[in-house]
C-alpha cells in the first residue's frame, strides 16, 4: 500500500516539458497534423512552381477552353493558358500576400493592444476610438476606394488589406492584454522598476502566445480571402498570377457562361482548402493550450485494487 504525496514537484525537469508538451500535443493531434500537412503541400508546390512549370504560366500553350486531358491536367482557359500551371503559380502570390498581411495585421494589433492595455486612460481611449473607427468602416468599399486610388501592384494590395484588417486583431489582443495587465505579476514588475516597453513585450506578451497565434492564423485567412475578393473585382494587380486573378479572368472570359468549370473551380478550391487547413491548425492550437477543450480519453486499463 503506497501513499502519494500530492505536493508540487520540485524537481526542475518535472514540467519543463511545458514547451515539449506543446509540441508533443500538436504532433499527436489529428487536426493539427492534417492542417499542417495540407499547408506543407501548398507551400511546397508554391516554392517548386518554377521548377514544375518553367516559364511564364500565363503564356498560351494550347487550344482555348479545352477540357482536362492528358496534356493539360486541368484543361485550358478561354485564352488557351494551362490552368494547372496558373493554379500552382497562383499559390505563390496568394500565400505570400496572405502571410504578409497576416503578420503585419497581427503585429500592428499587438502594438495597439499592448499600448492600450498597459497605458490605459487617455492612450487607451484614443487607440480604442481609432480601432473602433476602423472596425466600423465598411471594409469592402474602403478596400475598393483605396485600391482604386493607389497605383496597382502587390505592395498596394498588402497595404490596403493591412489597413483594413488590423483593427479586428487589435481589439481581441487588447482584451487579452487587459486581463493579463491586471495580474499581480505585472504590478510586481512595475514595483521592481521595469520599464514600460519591457513589461509589455517581456512580461505581458509571452502570456498571450496562444491567442497571438490564433490571431495570426485568422489574419492570414483574412489576407488570402480578401486578396482574392479584391482581385476578383479587378482591383488587385492584374498583371500577377494569383488565385484571385485567375478567378477574375475566369469571370471576365465568361467561364461560367460557357460551363468551363475547370477554369474557376481549382483556384476557388485552393483558397477554401488553405483556409480550412489554417482553421484546423487554429482549433488544434486552442485545444492543446487549453486543456479543458481536450477530449478526455480513458486509458485502456483502469486499476481496481481489491479492498484491503
Amino acid at each position, binding site marked *: 500500500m503506497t501513499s502519494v504525496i500530492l*505536493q*508540487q514537484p520540485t524537481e526542475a525537469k518535472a514540467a519543463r516539458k511545458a514547451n515539449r508538451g506543446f509540441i508533443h500535443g500538436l504532433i499527436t493531434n489529428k487536426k493539427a497534423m492534417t492542417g499542417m500537412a495540407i499547408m506543407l503541400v501548398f507551400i511546397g508546390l508554391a516554392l517548386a512552381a518554377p521548377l514544375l512549370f518553367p516559364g511564364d504560366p500565363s503564356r498560351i500553350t494550347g487550344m482555348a477552353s479545352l477540357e482536362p486531358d492528358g496534356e493539360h491536367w486541368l484543361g485550358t482557359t478561354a485564352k488557351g493558358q494551362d490552368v494547372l500551371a496558373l493554379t500552382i503559380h497562383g499559390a505563390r502570390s496568394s500565400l505570400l500576400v496572405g502571410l504578409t498581411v497576416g503578420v503585419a495585421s497581427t503585429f500592428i494589433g499587438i502594438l495597439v493592444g499592448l499600448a492600450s492595455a498597459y497605458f490605459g486612460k487617455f492612450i487607451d481611449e484614443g487607440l480604442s476610438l481609432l480601432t473602433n473607427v476602423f472596425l466600423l468602416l465598411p471594409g469592402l468599399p474602403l478596400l475598393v476606394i483605396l485600391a482604386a486610388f493607389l497605383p496597382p501592384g502587390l505592395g498596394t494590395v498588402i497595404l490596403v488589406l493591412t489597413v483594413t484588417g488590423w483593427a479586428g486583431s487589435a481589439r481581441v489582443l487588447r482584451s487579452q492584454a487587459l486581463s493579463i495587465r491586471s495580474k499581480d505579476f505585472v504590478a510586481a514588475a512595475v514595483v521592481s*522598476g521595469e520599464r514600460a516597453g519591457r513589461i509589455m513585450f517581456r512580461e505581458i506578451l509571452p502570456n498571450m502566445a496562444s491567442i497571438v497565434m490564433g490571431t495570426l492564423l485568422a489574419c492570414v485567412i483574412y489576407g488570402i480571402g480578401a486578396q482574392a475578393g479584391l482581385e476578383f473585382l479587378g482591383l488587385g494587380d492584374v498583371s500577377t498570377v494569383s488565385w484571385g486573378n485567375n478567378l477574375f479572368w475566369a469571370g471576365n472570359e465568361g467561364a461560367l457562361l460557357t460551363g468551363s468549370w475547370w477554369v474557376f473551380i481549382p483556384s476557388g478550391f485552393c483558397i477554401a482548402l488553405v483556409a480550412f487547413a489554417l482553421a484546423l491548425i487554429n482549433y488544434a492550437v486552442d485545444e492543446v493550450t487549453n486543456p479543458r477543450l481536450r477530449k478526455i480519453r480513458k486509458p485502456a486499463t483502469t486499476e481496481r485494487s481489491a479492498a484491503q
Partner: protein
Amino acid sequence: MSHAVHSPARPDVSTQTPALEVRGLGKTFHIGALFSSQAVRALHRVDLTIGRGEIVALVGESGSGKSTLARCVARLEKPSEGAILLDGVDVLKRDRFQASRKFRSQLQMVFQDPFGSLNPAHRIEHFLRRSLAIHGKGGTGQGSEEQTRQRLEELMTTVGLQADMLNSYPHELSGGQRQRVAIARALAVEPQVILADEPTSMLDVSVRIGVLNLMRKLRDEQGISMLYITHDLASARYLADRTAVMFAGEIVEEGESLDLLAHPAHPYTQLLVSAVPDPTRAGSYDPVHRATLRQAVMASTTCAFENDPDQRCSAEEPVRHQVGDPLNRHWVRCHLYRPGAGAGGHALATEPSTTVQ
C-alpha cells in the same frame, strides 16, 4: 519547549527619521461615467509611521482600504491627497509624474497571491536577475557574471531556498516557495522598506509561520522596515512591533502590538479581537455584545475618555486619545467621531437582525 521570548531591545525609533511616513493620505475613486460625481472614498487622512528596523502591522477587514493604502504607497495608484515620506523626503513631490528608479530601490512590495505574482512564462532566475540588473546590483565589466551568480545564490539561501531552484518555473514550486521567491526578488534591490500585502493568507497553514519567521529574520539581520498588511490579528501580534487598525479607510487605533491586543480601546478592535477563533474560548459568541459593539463603531454616543480632563473629545475632528502607558504609543481615535457616510461596508451593514426570534 515553550519559553517566553522578549523582543530584543528595540532601538528608540521615535527619535530617528522614520523609514516610511505617510501623512494625510487620501484616495477617492471616481466611478460611473466620465463626468459623474459619484465617488468612493477608499482612504481618508491616513497617518502612519514606520521606524527603522520596525515592523508595523495594518489590520482590517476586506474593504477597509488596507490594500489601497499599500498600492498608493507603492505608487501603483496615485493618491488623491497627502504625502509619502521615505527617509524624510516626500517622494510624491520629488517624482511628480511617476516613481523614479531611486524610489523603486528604496521600497519594494510582496503581493498576496503567490500563484499570480510570478510570471508563469519565466524561470525563477529571471526574476532575481532582472531586479539586480535594473538597479545595478550585479556589478559591471569583468567578473560581473560571477558576481551576479554569487548574489543570486546568496539571495536564495537567505530566503531558505535551494540554489538549484533558480532553473525552475513558478508552477513547479509550492505556494510557500513562490512567496519566498517573491521576497527574494524584493530583497535583491536592497530596499529600506518592504510592503507585504497579506503575504500568507493564500498559503497553507503549516507554511505560514515559516514565511513570517523569514520576515522577522530579515528585520533582525538586515534592519529592513516592513508594513505587514493582514486580516489575521494573531499573526500581526506574532510578527509586528506595532499594530494599526483600519476601518472604512481610516486608522482608528494604533499601538504596540501586545498592548493593543490585550487592551483594545476602540469598539471595532474589540469586535475583531472577540471574533478570532480560539479553542480555549469555545462558545463565546454573544450576539447582544456583538450588536452593542457594532452600534458603538457606527454611531457612538459616548467616549471612554469623556471624563478625562487631559484628553478633549470631539465629534468633528478625529482626535486621538492616548491609552495606557505612553511608552507603548497606543492611541485610539475619539469614539464620538463618526465614520463617513456609507462606511462600514461588509462586516457591519446588513447583518442578522436580532429582533427576529
